[in-house]
């Protein structure tokens, strides 16, 4: 409890500290560059200078935090990828050489590609289908809320949930994992799903699809509602059936949103490691890049060089989406 109290104190101190910084720096700026009861020239000059400085007072803390926590690490990771395990000995390209000769890396890379194809596609697809269907039934909002719910569950929590579903009992013991129980019910043989080579990857992906479908659904549902009713009504008058309306009228109009959803989930897939860590820790051929990287950070005391090299690979995969995002944001701002 004392710990929680100190957390609350920290909140108050932190908020007050921030407030004091912003208030104090503004106050100081106004004191240093006064604009009242001075000759016109002085006032004009002071205001101009203050106008240059003030935005940076507002941006300062964010600027520093972003620099230290995101920009500097990207640069530093790049540098470390040329250094040895403790980050002190320059080793040239040998980390990269190791990377491209490592079966482990290929396995992780291959799996990651599989994740990148399956998860965003499946989540977007289900999200779209559910969004379309829930929009036409009276209890749609309840349905959406329930399908959206896994969003709030941590990856590790979701892993436990699904590990329970995939639970496997050998022999004739009753299966307490739902999946095997269903399989047995229909007369099949129970399987240790998590260790089934290759297919186990898909069983892990299901977890992320389960989590992300709600996200896709919420956004696509809003986009669908943004479609002018007139276009749908016109299509009905033109004699289009339900599926034609969906594929030829609705989907093309929300194409941009679908792309946004798809890329957002793609980014998430690249970062996700909790699920693999919790379910298999990369065993049985389920390794992915993010977990591989985490592994190298601590394996045998940690190899920063190799870890950094894997991080660079993840970063390279993200860059195209990053560029696309920036372009989109710029276009949007110019539109304003």
């Amino acid at each position: 409890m004392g710990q929680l109290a100190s957390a609350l104190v920290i909140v108050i101190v932190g908020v007050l500290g921030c407030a004091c910084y912003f208030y104090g720096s503004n106050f100081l700026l106004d004191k240093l560059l006064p604009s009242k009861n001075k000759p016109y020239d002085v006032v004009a000059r002071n205001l101009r200078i203050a106008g240059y400085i003030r935005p940076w007072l507002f941006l300062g803390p964010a600027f520093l935090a972003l620099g230290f926590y995101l920009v500097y690490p990207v640069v530093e990771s790049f540098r470390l990828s040329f250094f040895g395990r403790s980050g002190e000995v320059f080793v040239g390209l040998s980390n990269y050489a190791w990377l491209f000769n490592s079966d482990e890396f290929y396995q992780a890379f291959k799996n990651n590609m599989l994740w990148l194809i399956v998860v965003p596609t499946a989540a977007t697809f289900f999200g779209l289908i559910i969004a379309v269907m829930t929009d036409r039934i009276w209890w749609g909002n309840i349905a959406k809320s329930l399908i959206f719910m896994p969003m709030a569950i941590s990856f590790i929590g979701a892993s436990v949930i699904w590990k329970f579903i995939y639970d496997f009992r050998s022999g004739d013991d009753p299966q307490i994992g739902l999946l095997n129980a269903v399989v047995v019910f229909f007369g099949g043989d129970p399987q240790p799903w998590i260790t089934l080579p290759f297919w186990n990857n898909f069983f892990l992906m299901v977890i992320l699809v389960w989590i992300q479908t709600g996200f896709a659904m919420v956004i696509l549902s809003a986009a669908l509602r943004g479609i002018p009713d007139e276009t749908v009504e016109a299509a009905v008058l033109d004699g289009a059936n339900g599926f034609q309306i969906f594929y030829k009228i609705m989907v093309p109009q929300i194409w941009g949103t679908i792309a946004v959803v798809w890329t957002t989930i793609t980014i998430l897939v690249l970062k996700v490691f909790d699920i693999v860590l919790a379910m298999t820790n990369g065993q049985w051929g389920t390794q992915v890049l993010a977990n591989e990287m985490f592994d190298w950070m601590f394996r045998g005391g940690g190899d920063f060089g190799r870890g950094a090299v894997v991080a660079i690979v993840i970063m390279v995969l993200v860059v195209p989406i990053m560029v696309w995002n920036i372009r989109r944001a710029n276009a949007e701002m110019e539109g304003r």
Partner: protein
Amino acid sequence: MVQSSKRSPLTWLVHATVLFLVVIWTIPTAGLFISSIRDKDQLSVSGWWTALSTSEQRMVTRVTVPKKPLQEDGLYVLTGNVFEDNKQGIVTRFGDSSLRPSEFESGKVAELKRELTLTVLANGDYKMTSPKAFSSRGKRIFYTAEIPPRFTLDNYREVLGSEGLGKSFLNSLTVTIPATIIPILVAAFAAYALAWMQFPGKALFIAAVVGLLVVPLQMSLIPLLRSYNFIGDIFGVGSKGYLGVWLAHMGFGLPLAIYLLRNYIAGLPREIIESARVDGATDFDIFRKIVLPLSFPALASFAIFQFLWVWNDLLIAMVFLGNNPDELVLTGRLRELLGSRGGNWEILTASAFITIIVPLCVFFGLQRFLVRGLLTGSVK
């Protein structure tokens, strides 16, 4: 919508499909919850979907042999109840060997080898007789019993106490509260500057924020770990601690915070800001008295995002907070339990439910803001 007026078969198909999907999506969580409040013996032998039905279980117990055995009519007698504690059930069959665990009907007297007899009544009382003294190691009794459903909070009691989840819960709160609130203020100021102030490099800064939105967290771990060690050495303090975690969460949460809030704040009516400026308000006044109150929905959205994200985070806590049992947050503890108590589903399900209950409450309570935040962030 166009279709809804027609009660066509298609409409029913839609209802059925959505219902099916909703069931698929909720069943995993429901299963977890139900399992977490089941008796641990039942949990390990039957699926949670049978929780409400009387389950037929095959069980085994070992008779206890007292120091001074009872003697009756020249025979040694052992009595007891197969349901060791106060649990309830109806024994249907019993046996004495693992090969034939349900050889006899309950109530019958079973003639066993070496002139032993065994009777197990439906209520679980057993009686074993033998002409010779019993060996100190009791015989096993196999029995099949119908056990009524049993629900209990014991699992929760256990994980919160001896498994240390209570402490982890506090740790999670300690990490989450400051890491949620502090970035909001920092981000709001930056967002205001990016939305309503003019300065060179503004467009570049916004582009950078959008770019940083997608930088994988993994990139930062190694350099930050090194920096933290370095800074820790300088000040002679450990590199792991709450301060580092709070700041890290702030740093990683800022791009989204700035992006969300800037979009919202830039969308406030220009004339209101200008009116305040004509009224003599400085940028600081405008921010505090106009922008902050009007941005409440966006602030709430981000707060929810950040809360969920920090609460559910495993990576940052693992790297920057350390792995001592006392320092583990809920996600870290759950992961550890998954390793050490992998088969104990009563522990895992209860622990998992404790870790997800707070986010779920936040989610259902404040879903409106969450959706709004998602939409400002992604749909344009």
